[in-house]
């Protein structure tokens, strides 16, 4: 029976305050708390609360047949736990239905895997413990920041005990094969790989309100029809997208909530189709083949690689400087410093320094709190300067 796997990513970075060189050595709190709270409140109002309420209603209506997955980054959890317990509760209510799987990722929404295996593992374990505490689930599914994926990552993730990993269904690794199957990562024996169907996913995430689109308006009935055309016993259709699609990226006025509301019914109208969470889909299907991915891929930009974070010399410089601090920092055994360092690992800080497309101004611009990638880099490097000074001055907790 064909399965639909719906997974929503929930993430908000902890945006940094404007940090001048003259602040180095004086200000050690790097977060722009007011701006973060402002954005969290807006997204909670426009997306998290109404979308969670709608999903809960749909799950109850479908009596277990509508199943979804969430991955909440540690940085958004930090903000929700601190400021919006009502939002946390609404996620917990969803967890209690038994129809929602909560995935694991790196707690800081970081690129740690590419630079420090040790830090990567620490962050995954941290996130796993957090999800267990908050939602009472031991996740068997892993997704990496921005759906970054490679053979090496799959092997490391298998070692950490996961059964499933998610990645982008790009032609770079699929060739002419379909993303609508389950695959086995090269070099892994048990781990299963779910690949995002980017056409169908982006029809909702990016093209939903595009009035010039051939298929505008996209209704749930039309969308379900496209999905129903994909047949086959081993079919798994993976629709992965940002949760903020609902109400924040696509405003309520576009009809996105009506679409979401009608979707389960329209899909389930066909008796062969069912919703499954990633771990269920993986258990119920056999791999159709092996995916070999020596170079990292991601779900970002046309390139589907890591160039949005590591594409220019500033980004390389910033990331290198960040991870170069690790050994000195660990020697200090100072929890406060470690926390500050982890907060700086969030991939968004590096993404803001991306110069691709900056000239044209587009999606990168939309999410960027800085006037230019240069401002982003300057701000970040000043903060790193301060952290590095703090590390040098720290005597460590033990002494």
């Amino acid at each position: 029976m064909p399965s639909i796997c719906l997974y929503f990513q929930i993430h908000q970075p902890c945006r940094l305050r404007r940090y001048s060189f003259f602040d180095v050595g004086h200000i050690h709190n790097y977060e722009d708390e007011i701006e973060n709270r402002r954005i969290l409140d807006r997204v909670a109002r426009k997306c998290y609360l109404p979308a969670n309420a709608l999903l809960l209603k749909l799950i109850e209506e479908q009596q277990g047949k509508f199943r979804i997955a969430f991955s909440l980054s540690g940085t958004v959890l930090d903000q929700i736990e601190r400021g919006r317990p009502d939002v946390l509760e609404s996620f917990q209510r969803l967890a209690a239905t038994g129809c929602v799987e909560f995935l694991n990722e790196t707690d800081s929404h970081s690129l740690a895997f590419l630079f420090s295996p040790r830090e990567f593992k620490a962050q995954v374990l941290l996130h796993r413990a957090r999800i267990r505490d908050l939602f009472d689930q031991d996740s068997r599914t892993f997704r990496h920041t921005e759906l970054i994926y490679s053979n090496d990552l799959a092997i490391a993730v298998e070692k950490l005990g996961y059964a499933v990993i998610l990645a982008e269904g790009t032609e770079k690794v699929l060739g002419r094969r379909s993303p609508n199957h389950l695959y086995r990562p090269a070099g892994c024996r048990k781990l299963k790989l779910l690949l995002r169907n980017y056409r169908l996913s982006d029809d909702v995430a990016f093209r939903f309100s595009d009035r010039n689109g051939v298929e505008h308006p996209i209704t749930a009935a039309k969308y379900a029809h496209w999905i129903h055309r994909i047949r086959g016993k081993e079919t798994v259709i993976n629709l992965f997208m940002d949760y903020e699609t609902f109400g924040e990226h696509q405003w309520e006025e576009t009809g996105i909530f009506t679409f979401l509301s009608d979707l389960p019914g329209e899909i389930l109208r066909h008796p062969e189709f069912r919703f499954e969470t990633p771990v269920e889909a993986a258990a119920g299907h056999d791999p159709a083949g092996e995916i070999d991915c020596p170079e990292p891929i991601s779900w970002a930009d046309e390139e589907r690689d890591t160039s949005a974070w590591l594409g220019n010399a500033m980004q390389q410089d910033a990331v290198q400087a960040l991870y170069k601090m690790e050994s000195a920092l660990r020697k200090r055994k100072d929890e406060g410093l470690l926390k500050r360092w982890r907060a700086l690992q969030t991939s968004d800080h590096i993404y803001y320094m991306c110069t691709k497309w900056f000239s044209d101004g587009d999606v990168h611009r939309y999410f960027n709190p800085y006037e230019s990638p240069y401002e982003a880099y300057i701000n970040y490097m000043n903060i790193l300067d301060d952290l590095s000074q703090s590390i040098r001055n720290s005597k460590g907790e033990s002494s």
Partner: protein
Amino acid sequence: MHILMFGWEFPPRMSGGLGTACFGMTKGLAALGHRITFVLPQAEATSAPFLNLLPAYATPVSSVEREEREIESLHRLTVNPIPSLLAPYLDGERYRELTLFGRGRLQDSPFVYGIDLIAEVIRYGKAAGALARRISFDIIHAHDWMTVPAALLARRISGKPFVLHIHSLEFDRSGDNVNGAILAMERDGLEAADRVIAVSHRTKRMIVERFGIPPEKVSVVYNAVSRNEAQRLYRTERTGPQKMVLFLGRITFQKGPDYFVEAAAKVLKVLPDVTFVMAGAGNMMRQMIERVGELKIGNRFHFTGFLQGEEIERIFSLSDLYIMPSVSEPFGIAPLEAMLYDVPVILSRQSGVAEVLKHALKVDFWDTRELAAKIITVLKHPALMDVMAEKAREELRTIRWDTAAERITEIYQETVKVSKRDLGERADFKSFPMPQ
């Protein structure tokens, strides 16, 4: 189209952005096939007639071969120098100095020039505008207030439409201490012009808000930058760990040299080995030298005086960072020139060029702390300089005089069309039998 242009300076004698803009624009227009009669004031006793002037730009300084197309297009250009002491950025005081102590000119022709700047502008206007009697053309294009009387006279004689191109306003140059006579001349020009071209939206806003000119009459055409092959010679002068930060421009109120000095002092407290260079001349130079002394940073702060030609190329190629802290800058071509030498730039937000440039850092001119902080961070992180220089190179390819000239051509065409229609209406009116 045949253009009668009242402009300024041709290479190799250039004192600033106005001349650079006139030259680049003229080349761009000539390349599009327009014929241009270029009228400019020329004060030298050995005042060169057109044919002597031509080789100065037809033969490049570096003697690198120019493209044939360019040489051909320069033939569509006729240059008409008119004897006058006028020069871009001249103020009343400096004009008085010129007339009193001007390198022997006055002894030869004591009664030729105007008694003060305004009188000279009017006198030049009569001489230059009168050219309109001798040649035929389709449109008049004048640059800044000093050419307004000439353009108005040419229009009166010929009845042809007049486009006034504003590169800077008295408000930019003098802040609140404006010269009323200059302001009046700007107003006359702006009101009488059939069409106004502003070098930035910033300037357009000032024209609309301060002079009450209808916004639909004002079009924005950004300046551009021409690549000179000679610049290649000076590409790789930056060596070693010693960093140099450059200010290049007139040392006047408008350019904010004082903010550069204050920021330099703040930077030197953190990075004592940086060298600051202030290149240019102007009425605030003495004051700046005194302030540098007061701040005790003289050993790291240099004044070069007025630079031109290859000296400018050389100083850019030696610099690690270019700062333009202008208080009020209608456009600002110099940052584009800096970018040609792979020098990253920090611009005042109060500049027109900041509207165009994405790959530059921007600060409010008065925020010397922020300016200093940015200078320090840029100098400390070579990766930033590299990426900015690389991206700026790509950006410069899109900022071309060809494109500006195309836009100006459209403006000419619209203006001529409207003016013909108006003339037609007037002609109809005249042909109506008037009651005796």
